[in-house]
């Protein structure tokens, strides 16, 4: 196996090509201005930089440099066919509606963690303060457990909003939506703020 030399290209005058590259956006420094090696390297590297800029500014508009729709369609079809539902959680008998994705298994009604996450996102998305990221159902370990769940949610918060009041409203909106649509009582909604947006 060939050993790759970590050394970098150096010009005849001793300057590294990388230094010339890094200085391209500025006028030549004192050495460069009087050094034929450096001036030649600046000219050709400058040409390369200009070429890259030309291509980058047009490539997204050239149809032949885009994939055909097949890629998008096929990947999405596979994702749909292999959709992840997460754990299933037993719904209380005779309560709640069957939307969005309640499934009848024998005489038990269950709801998937993925469906609960979707309810949470829909309940929270109209609120400008938070962007919901991940949703975990934290308790509902067994069929014998009481029909209540806890939720652990990570979110990004808008920088101009007061978190405590907004978080209170968000918790109530989420708990209401989940209970309305699944019949499950929501015992806790933990919101972990992991980011700030809207700068």
């Amino acid at each position, binding site marked *: 196996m060939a050993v*790759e*030399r*970590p*050394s*970098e*290209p150096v010009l005849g005058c001793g300057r*590294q*090509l*990388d230094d010339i*590259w890094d200085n391209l956006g500025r006028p030549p420094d004192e050495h460069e201005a009087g050094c034929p090696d450096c001036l030649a*390297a600046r*000219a*050709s*590297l400058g*040409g*390369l930089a200009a*070429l*890259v800029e*030309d*291509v*980058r500014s*047009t*490539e*997204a508009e*050239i*149809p*032949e*440099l*885009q*994939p*055909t729709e*097949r*890629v*998008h369609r*096929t*990947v*999405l079809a*596979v*994702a*749909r066919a*292999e*959709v*992840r*539902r*997460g754990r299933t959680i037993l719904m209380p008998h005779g309560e709640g509606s069957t939307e969005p994705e309640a499934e009848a298994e024998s005489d038990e009604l269950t709801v998937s963690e*993925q469906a609960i*996450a*979707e309810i949470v*996102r829909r309940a929270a*998305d*109209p609120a400008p303060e938070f*962007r*919901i*990221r*991940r*949703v975990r159902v934290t308790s509902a370990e067994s069929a014998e457990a009481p029909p209540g769940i806890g939720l652990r949610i*990570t979110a*990004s918060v808008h920088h101009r909003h007061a978190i405590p009041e907004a978080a209170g409203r968000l918790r109530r909106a989420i708990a209401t939506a989940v209970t309305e649509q699944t019949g499950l009582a929501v015992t806790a909604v933990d919101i972990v703020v992991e*980011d700030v*947006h809207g700068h």
Partner: protein
Amino acid sequence: MDTELDELTLVSRAQDGDLRSFEQLITLYEGPLFRLALRMVGDRQEAEDIVQEALVVVWRSLPELEDPVAFPRWIYQITTRRCLNLLRTRDRRPARPVVDTELEAVAGDAERRPDGVVEQRATTEALAGLLATLPSDQRACWLLHTFHDLTYAQIAEIMAVGEATVRGRIARARKTLAEGMLPWR
């Protein structure tokens, strides 16, 4: 509202199985990943296959991605390694010059959009011709850095080498490419 979601939110939601967020990620990445693959392997069909397979792997493996911040590096890693694997299995066959595909691309484009085609053709042709002169490892490092804005540290992870090696490869690629610029200018 969905269109305003930042990438970290999209990645997190896709990890939870949200198809709409995953579709937005496909829309964001399929173009850049395709151009990377096309410039690496020089063949439209093979480039599309690589991107398609890579995105399916991404969907299947998303729950195991621990840090959503690593998503860009991860998705480029899956794509780049597939390109390099293809090039390795292909090394018995005569190399198909990268220039062919980008040339065909621009020639086809020229018939439909005559404005600015001369310059566009010249630049795309020049880039494709230059890229064909680079060894594949250097080409990958240089493309990831220059066209996809990845850092040396990210590229080092993608290529499973040290940062110094990445730095050296990019510097040598620049030298070769810059020397090749003379006939173009």
